[in-house]
């Protein structure tokens, strides 16, 4: 039987051998099924563990949470919250009932949360009893109305940045929080990011690593991108769109670019980083000038500026600090980060975890070895001029010695928004104070919204100290 041809298929009747050899793949398929099942049940049990340690656990101490606005960011927040223990989701509200609302409710169901779905937030506030908190991630121009109504209904509110597209709206939010005594956290999540907190509290305040800060900078570069689309079969009827302040599906998905609805990239992206300027420098800005315009996209559908450069001045207790900020939406290279420079060192920090380092000015700063030993900083990486760099014959005398680079010795791998949400829920439980309460969010909005005004005015605009208070 060692020499054989597969000639058993010669039109004869099927015999035992045909049968056995014909089905030779079946046991292999069985083995495959076993392996795939094992893998899948492992995956499921991992997921179930995550759920059990997290959201779906019932219990008296659970907070009852509603979601208002579950688009792109609402989805991000929800996925972060599903990793936070002690939350019970009760209701979801979104005007896009055909799509986003359904997606969020389905996701919650998968995690064991039976939620009621609403299209109109007033309906939700009427019918839902026993809610503790609401997470608002609707477009900016809805924030004030939604937040004020929820606070007045007795709920604690986490509202996404930008606090509002108008200062008048933002003021009403601060006042409502004050009047109701409910908590209002604004979604500048860097304020709760452990890397940012460590940098601010330890490296800047305690160790004063940068010395006398003189300049700051920041940028958010994004690649050119087509306008956001939508699945045609889930289009919202025109009547409902109008009812909620949108005149087309295009405007509904691309609200950020429209005056009266959003604030454009400077407000969308810049607000996070301009907020960090004020936080790290410890003061609100004194003035701002800015240049901007819709240089690349169609101004008919991009009413707000696609490119903005702004310059702020800050009067800190140790002297003036000038800060520049750039946002552009036509090239994503070099990404997004903030940077602070003092006479003893430079800090470069970003929410993106690859970027985070301080650079020691060798000529002025003392030794940082102690901070490396204590684990605050990574070991110095010496940035050398390469000896084999044939392109230049000698080091230019005007160049100074390049600084040592130290990575910030604190990594953070959770979803970016999770600590900020945790801070909010801890505050609701009375175990923490808010990292970005209404007043702080307001000050940040004052600083940011003025950029668009400055672009229009084409001159330096000054802030008065009173402007920052409600």
């Amino acid at each position, binding site marked *: 039987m060692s020499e*054989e041809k597969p*000639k058993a298929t010669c039109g004869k009747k099927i015999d035992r051998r045909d049968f056995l050899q*014909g089905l*030779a*793949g079946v046991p292999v398929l069985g083995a*495959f099924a076993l392996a795939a099942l094992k893998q899948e049940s492992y995956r499921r049990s991992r997921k179930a563990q995550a759920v059990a340690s997290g959201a779906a656990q019932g219990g008296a101490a659970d907070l009852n949470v509603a979601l208002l606005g579950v688009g792109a960011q609402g989805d991000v927040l929800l996925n972060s919250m599903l990793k936070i223990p002690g939350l019970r989701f009760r209701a979801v509200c979104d005007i896009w009932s055909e799509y986003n609302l359904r997606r969020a409710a389905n996701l919650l169901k998968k995690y064991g949360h039976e939620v009621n779905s609403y299209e109109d937030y007033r309906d939700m506030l009427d019918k839902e009893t026993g809610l503790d908190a609401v997470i608002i991630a609707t477009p900016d121009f809805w924030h004030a109305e939604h937040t004020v109504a929820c606070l007045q209904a007795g709920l604690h509110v986490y509202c996404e940045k930008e606090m509002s597209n108008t200062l008048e709206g933002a003021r009403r939010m601060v006042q409502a929080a004050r009047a109701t005594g409910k908590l209002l956290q604004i979604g500048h999540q860097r304020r709760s990011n452990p890397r940012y907190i460590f940098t601010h509290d330890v490296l800047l305040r305690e160790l004063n690593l940068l010395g006398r800060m003189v300049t700051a900078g920041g940028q958010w570069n994004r690649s050119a991108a087509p306008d956001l689309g939508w*699945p045609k079969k889930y289009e919202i009827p025109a009547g409902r769109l109008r009812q909620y302040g949108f005149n087309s599906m295009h405007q509904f998905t691309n609200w950020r670019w429209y005056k009266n609805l959003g604030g454009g990239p400077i407000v969308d992206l810049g607000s996070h980083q301009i907020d960090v300027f004020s936080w790290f420098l410890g003061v609100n800005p004194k003035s701002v000038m800015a240049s901007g315009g819709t240089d690349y996209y169609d101004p008919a559908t991009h009413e707000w500026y696609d490119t903005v450069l702004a310059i702020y001045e800050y009067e800190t207790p140790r002297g003036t600090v000038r800060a520049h900020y750039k946002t552009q939406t036509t090239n994503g290279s070099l990404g997004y980060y903030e940077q602070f420079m003092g006479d003893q060192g430079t800090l470069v920090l970003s929410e993106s975890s690859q970027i985070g380092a301080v650079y020691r000015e060798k000529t002025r700063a003392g030794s940082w070895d102690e901070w490396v030993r204590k684990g605050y900083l990574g070991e110095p990486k010496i940035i050398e001029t390469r000896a084999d760099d044939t392109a230049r014959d000698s080091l230019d005398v005007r160049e100074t010695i390049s600084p040592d680079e130290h990575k910030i010795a604190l990594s953070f791998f959770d979803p970016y928004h999770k600590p900020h949400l945790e801070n909010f829920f801890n505050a609701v439980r009375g175990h923490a104070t808010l990292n970005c309460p209404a007043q702080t969010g307001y000050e940040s909005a004052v600083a940011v919204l003025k950029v668009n005004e400055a672009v229009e005015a084409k001159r330096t605009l000054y802030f008065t100290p009173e402007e920052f208070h409600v």
Partner: protein
Amino acid sequence: MKNIQLSRIQWISLVALRMIIGWHFLYEGVAKLLKGNWSAYGFLMESKWIFADLFRWMAGQPALLEVVNAANIWGLILIGLGLMLGAFTRLAAAGGILLIALYYLCNPPFVGLFYSIPAEGNYIFINKNIVELAALVVLLLIPTQQMAGVDRILAKLLKKSPRNPAS
């Protein structure tokens, strides 16, 4: 050269090769299916070389992308089943060759093309896709399914007189 006959162990090794490739296809498909939200988007967007525009265009059409995703998942599963069971084997092998060729053309390992999705090995012109594709060509040409596979039974049922494969 004409009358080379394969020994039993040679046939078994070829059948094993077919089943192994089938296993790989099947799990690639099943895993994507179970994941629920898998999409070819990232892979297509990474495309380099002369077909890059075409692949990126596909990624940019939501409706088309959905079709591509489903075709890929179910293609992988059916091809995997076919190869593993030896059912419609030639069709499965041909389908597998086509799919792999598309993966290869989307992101070919040519001189001077760099990908941000890291590969687990080092390749120039030939990568594991091509190895698998070549193995499928062998399996397309050598009818292992008549040695071991559902096709052996099907052939008899359909009473088609088969070609004598090994000569």
